[in-house]
Structures are given as structure tokens and as C-alpha cells.
């Protein structure tokens, strides 16, 4: 293996890791799609109650790793994962662990807003309902309303909860998807380029929301926008060609990258 391609874990522990509890801990993770290796020997710690951003050029493996964290890659028959990934010290690739329950604990927001073609209310209520989180109609209402409130959408939709989720604007749809994700009370929220389909105003709105949500959740966000990573995240990980090149406090990465590739990328020399 080429020396320049070996994973460089930041020599000093990022300060955000030191300040917070480590929520997700990955060690020596390799991901294969058939014969093709998408992620090489990746190790990373992700702090709780903070926003961690994965940046890197297209095809570098950041989305793949995100999908490994809630075992969404299981749905791809050819995908294979080795190494360990622990959430709160529990290996999520343990055979005894039910991936469906894991996904309830590790919610996900996708690149393109994908509300169910059902009412706004039903969109949010679906998760709590299948997991039996609400004992009564009142409790379900409470969960739905508070989720919409926490996603900053409640005031905009409270008069039309029965309207289809797809009738909302793009930004509203994405917030609805966030509300849907937090309705099942997850510990981790994974966001795969959540603003890439949105205009700047809607993006700003989502970023504010992410900032608020980090009080309660461990948030991991994949983004192509370095400004976004700089704005919302506390920890930044730079991926390149399937390798995790550099991890560090966001301020540190953007002001003083250790690796040449990181520097080239954030200064826009490639990507």
C-alpha cells in the first residue's frame, strides 16, 4: 500500500472528542462492493451531542461510511463490511443485533427530501406507530407535534397537517424528513448532503436546525459544501479515494490542515 494513502489519524486527539462522550467508534473498517473496495481501513471516533462533518470529493466513500453506520448498506446484496463499529460500546455488526432496531436508533436524512406520499401528520407518525412509541392517539399527537416543533416546521404546517407531505416546498419537505427522523427519538442522526437539493435560504434554515439539534443528538453530516461544514460542524473528517485522510476539530482542519490533500481540497485545488 502506498505510504501516502495510509490513513492518518490526527496525532493529537481533537479537542471536541476530548470534551464529549464518544458516541460512535469505528476501527479498521473496510467496505467492499463486490470486488471493489470502497473504504480502506477506516478508524474514527465521533462525539455525542456535536456535529461531525464528512467532506471530500465525490466517490471518496463518505456516503458509504454514513450508510455503514446505520447498516443501510445491508440492503445492497454485494456490500460487505469488516472491522468494528460501536455505538455506545456495542458492536452494530454483531449478529445478534437487529438492523431494523438499529435504524430506529440511528435515524437518517437523505440527499433529496423524500417524504412519504401521505399526509404531513402521517409522515411523522409512521415511525412512532411501527415502534409502538405512543400508547394513545393523544400521545401520538404529542410526539408528532413536538417533532414538528423541534424541526421548526410546526408553525408552518399546523393548519394543514392532513395535506400531503409532497405538497410542501423543498426546504419544508427536508425539515419534515428531519421531524420524521427525530420522531422515533434516535440517538444519532445521519444526514447525507441534506441541503444539496435546497436553495440558500432553505439551506440556512436547515443549518440553524442542525445547530439546535446537536444539543440532543449525535449528528453526522455528509456535505459537499466546505462552508457548510465549517459553519455547522465541530469535527471534520476529510475522505479521499476511500481513505479517511484527516480528522480534526473543524477550526483546525480549515485553518491548519495537516495533510497536503486536505489543504488542496479545502482551498479548491481539486474536488
Amino acid at each position, binding site marked *: 500500500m502506498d505510504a501516502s494513502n495510509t490513513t492518518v489519524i490526527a496525532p493529537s486527539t481533537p479537542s471536541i472528542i476530548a470534551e464529549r462522550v464518544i458516541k460512535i467508534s469505528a476501527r479498521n473498517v473496510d467496505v467492499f462492493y463486490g470486488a471493489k473496495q470502497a473504504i480502506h481501513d477506516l478508524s474514527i471516533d465521533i462525539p455525542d451531542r456535536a456535529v461531525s462533518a464528512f467532506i471530500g470529493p465525490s466517490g471518496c466513500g463518505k456516503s458509504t461510511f454514513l450508510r455503514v453506520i*446505520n447498516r*443501510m448498506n445491508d*440492503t445492497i*446484496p454485494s456490500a460487505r463490511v469488516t472491522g468494528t463499529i460501536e455505538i455506545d460500546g456495542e458492536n452494530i455488526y454483531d449478529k445478534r443485533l437487529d438492523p*431494523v*432496531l438499529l*435504524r*430506529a*436508533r440511528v*435515524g*437518517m*436524512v*437523505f440527499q*433529496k427530501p*423524500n*417524504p*412519504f*406520499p401521505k399526509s404531513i401528520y402521517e409522515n411523522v407518525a*409512521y*415511525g412512532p406507530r*411501527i*415502534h409502538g412509541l405512543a400508547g394513545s392517539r393523544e400521545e401520538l399527537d404529542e410526539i408528532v407535534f413536538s417533532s414538528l416543533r423541534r424541526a421548526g416546521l410546526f408553525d408552518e404546517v399546523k393548519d394543514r397537517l392532513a395535506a400531503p407531505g*409532497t405538497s410542501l416546498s423543498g426546504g419544508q419537505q427536508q425539515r419534515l*424528513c428531519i421531524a*420524521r*427522523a427525530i*420522531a*422515533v427519538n434516535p440517538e444519532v442522526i445521519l444526514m447525507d448532503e441534506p441541503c444539496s437539493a435546497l436553495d440558500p435560504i432553505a439551506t440556512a434554515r436547515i443549518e440553524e436546525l442542525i445547530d439546535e439539534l446537536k444539543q440532543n443528538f449525535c449528528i453526522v453530516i455528509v456535505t459537499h459544501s466546505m462552508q457548510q461544514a465549517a459553519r455547522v460542524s465541530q469535527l471534520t473528517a476529510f475522505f479521499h479515494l476511500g481513505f479517511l485522510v484527516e480528522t480534526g476539530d473543524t477550526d483546525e482542519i480549515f485553518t491548519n490542515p495537516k495533510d497536503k490533500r486536505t489543504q488542496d481540497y479545502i482551498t479548491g485545488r481539486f474536488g
Partner: protein
Amino acid sequence: MTDLSLRAAGFKSPVARQRLAKRYRAEARFRSYGVIGLSLTALFIALLLFDVAVKGLPAFVQHSLAFDIALDPQKLDPQGTRSSANLAEADFLQPLRDKLLSYFPDVSTRARRKALLGVLSTGAADDLRETLLADPSLIGRTVKVEALLSDDADLYFKGTGTVITSEAATGSASLTQLPEEQRFTVVSTEGDFARALAEIKRQLSRRADDFQAGAERLRAERQRLETAGGPADVLQKNLKSLDLKIGEFQTRATDLRDRALAANAPEKLDSTVPSLLAEVNSGLIKAEEIASDRLTGTALLLPASLGLAAPGTWRLVTYETPESSRQIGDQEVAWLESLKRQGLIRSHFNTRFFTAGDSREPELAGIRGALIGSLLTLMVTLTICLPVGVAAAIYLEEFARKNRLTEIIEVNINNLAAVPSIVFGLLGLALFLNTFGLPRSAALVGGLVLALLVLPTIIIASRAALKAVPPSIREAALGVGASHQQAVLHHVLPLAMPGIMTGTIIGMAHALGETAPLLMIGMVAFIVDIPSGITDSATVLPVQIYLWSDLPEIAFQAKTAAAIIVLLVVLFLMNGFAIVLRRRFERRW
């Protein structure tokens, strides 16, 4: 930059302009191919629909004879019980027959009576019986009856009979009765029949020419044989038989020519020429022999009186279509025209077509049995196809591992969709009838066979619908912690449902129009009773069409076309419903 501007300048050069013109021509040509193809298709569809409509629409109208009948309690219910059993046995043809005969008092012989009664449908008496069974209090009263006409009479009033022309005669006529029964002579003072006679002579002359030509052809043939030679005895035999034929043709030609040339000699009329009739003294004499001033023939309607008829009071009537080219004879035409003139013929919508089962009598046959049969068959098909098809599609599309086995299954499902339908019929015959011993001709078996036939279609359509649901919906469901099965059942399937329904309806429409496999399992039988369950003998619409199209009665042609119209309407409705469903639930993500 220079390169680019040079090339831009090149867009205006003559070569470039030619290239542009060529592209325009190619595009215009391509478009015209499309337009031609579409126009041809539209033309053929329009022709088909027009043809079916023209042939079938008359079948939705029926003609009846409407008259008042006194229902004699002594004859219909001599015991006076008014019980259904008694009434069911009574002779209801009697009052109808008496009434009809009363309009034509001259119809005395048994044969003519039978012919006259043939104008009425055999179902007319049954209709009257039904009416009285429903309301026995009508017995003893005079009721208005609409007696159904026979198919031939009905067809006559639908315009398939003959064109009737009629002109006032110029001379005065003297009508005399001949010694033979019903035969009369009409003598005109002005030679009113001369024109008709001349027309007949012209025809004779034409036929003489035909025979002459035939004779010439045979002579040439004889010449050829003679020069060709060959064994003497065979040659002699052949020549001899040719000579005989030539002689025969020549004689007939000469004979006809002589008759044609004798301009004033009387001529006999046969059934191959238009019928000529004289309407004198409210009688109708059918010409059997005419001279220029004299007509001899049988009375189709008896004249009220003999003797003289003044010019203008009697008429010459021609039935333009020769009797031999018609379904209905001159006598019947005369009777029907007389009834029509008395205002007794009513036309009305043919409700029986939708309420009756099949019948050997075209005027009594209806499609209800076939419609119900189709409905029951489709119900069986749907009950089996929809759950099995959708379940198979969901399993294959969402859950099955992609391996050798599922690949083979997939390929074979696609192959099954292309298997000729008759093969499914044979399978049904072997499996359902012979192995399982299910009832023959039943909607149950028909439905099972059609289910086999439609299943691949539904599976393929359902899989396409499932595949069309965007993966983002699946991911969204998985992302909130739904299991794969929950994601499919709660989200993917409801979204795929319009597509599945569309596929199912189109599959059902396919099943509705299917004939061949049903022939194999005996649904092709003549079944009068309307099926009341899926194990009753039944037939279906397309098979009914097939059965009717095979029958010799002319009236069944219209019935066939009418049944096709009904089938097409049902198919259009089903496909229309599929389109509405698709439009209504079509979603964009």
C-alpha cells in the same frame, strides 16, 4: 477562435445550406412516415367500427305486431282456476293465430295459414303466457299485445327485403277470376304491361347471348380436341358428349332468342326476375304470365270485387329484388306490407337482447347468458389472479434472492406470457376437467384457465409497478426503522397499486376477449339458461359471438355484430377505467 469563426461562416456556405435542406427533407420524410402509419391505423379502426356499427345497430331494434286480443276465458282457462299450472298449459298461440287470420280472411288452405303464421315468432305465444302468468286478471279482457315478428319478417322491416316501386296504371282494368283457386286475370285497355314485357324480352335476349357464347366456347373446345387427336375411342366419346352439350346450349340460345324476338308473345315470370304485381280492387295479383295487355297470376291478397277498375284506381307494383334473392317470399311481403299499411307494425328497442339467453331463433336470442357467464368467469379469474399475481410479483421483486432459480422463474414467467392461449385451454382440459373432475363448460373452470393465462401479464405488470416506486421511498421507510417487509407493505405496495390495478384491468380485458382456451374446456356449448353460479354451464361473450357467427340464419349476422358492439363497449369501459385509475393515482416524486 479563428477556427470557430471560420466554421460559423461555413454554416452559411452553399454546401451547408444543402446539408440543412437535406436534414429538413429527412425530418419531413420521417414525420410523414409516422403520419401515414397513424392514418392507416385510424382508417382501419374507423372502418372496423363503422362496419360493426352498421351491421350491429339494427339488432338493437325489433319489430312487433301490435293488436288487441280478446282473451277468451273459456279457451285459456276452462276450469276458471287462474292457477299458474293451468295457464302454463293453455294454448296461447290460438288467440294470436285467430287474430292474425282475421286480417286475411282469404287465407284458407292449411299451407297458406302456416305461411301466414310464420310471420310471427314462436316466442310470441310465450310472451303472452308470461304476461298472463304475471297478471291472470287479464283473462276475459281485451288486451293490447305486441306479438314479436319472426326474424325474417323483422329483417324485412329493417330494410333487407326489397325495394318496392309502384306506379298508377294508365288504362282501365278488368279483373276476372279463373277457374283455378285464387287465380285471376287482369286485362288493361292501354297495354300497361308492355314495358314490363319488353324488359323481360331484353333479359331473354341477354340470356340467349350468354348461351350462344357458351356454345361458341364449346365449339372451340371441340376444335382443339379434334386437332389434338389421341386414342380414337376416347376422342369419340369426348366429342360426343361435347356435341350433346353444344346442341343443348344452341337449342336454348335459339329458343330464348325466338322468345325475345316475338315482341308481343306472352311471357312467364319466374323467381329470378323482379316480381310484378297488379294492385286491383284492393287485391294484389302476382304476375305469373304477362302479355302487353294482360296479366295472369295468383292473388296474394284477395280482391274485394271483380270487374272493371278505372284508370288511376289500380296500380302496378314491382318488388325489385327477385324472389329467389330474398329471404322472404312475395306472399309474405304482401302480407307484411298490408299489416304495415294498417298501422299494426311497431318497432321498439330490443330489450330482449339484454335479458334473454341464447336461442335457436334469432329474434329470441340474447346475450344475457353470455354476459353473466363472462362476469362469473372474470370473477373467478380475478379472485385467483390478483392475490397470486401480486404476491408473486412482490416476492420476486422485493424478497427473492437473485440467484439461478429466481432467474429461471423470471424467464419462464415471461415465456408463459407468450404461450398461445389454446395451450392453456389444453392444460385446463387435462388438469381441471380430467384430473380434478371439475364440471365441464363451467365458469369455474373457464376462470381458472383464464387465470393461468392472465397470471404472467399481472405478474409482469405488477413487478414493473413495484420497480417504478422510487428507491427513496424505500430508504425513507428503512431510515425510520421500518423492516423491509413493513417498508414494502406500508409504502411501496400502496404506491404501486395504481400500476398493479391498471395491469390487472388490462389483463382482465384480455381475459374477457379470450376465446380459444374456453373452446377447449367446453364453454362453447349452446346454453339457453342464464348461469346462476360458477359451476353452472355457461358461455362467455366472445364465444357467443363465435357461435352466432357460425349460424346460417341471416338475422344472426346482426346479432353477432351487436354482441361485438357490447363486447367492445365493455372492453372500452374497462380500459377507460384503467386509464382513469392511472391518471387519478399517478404520483410524481
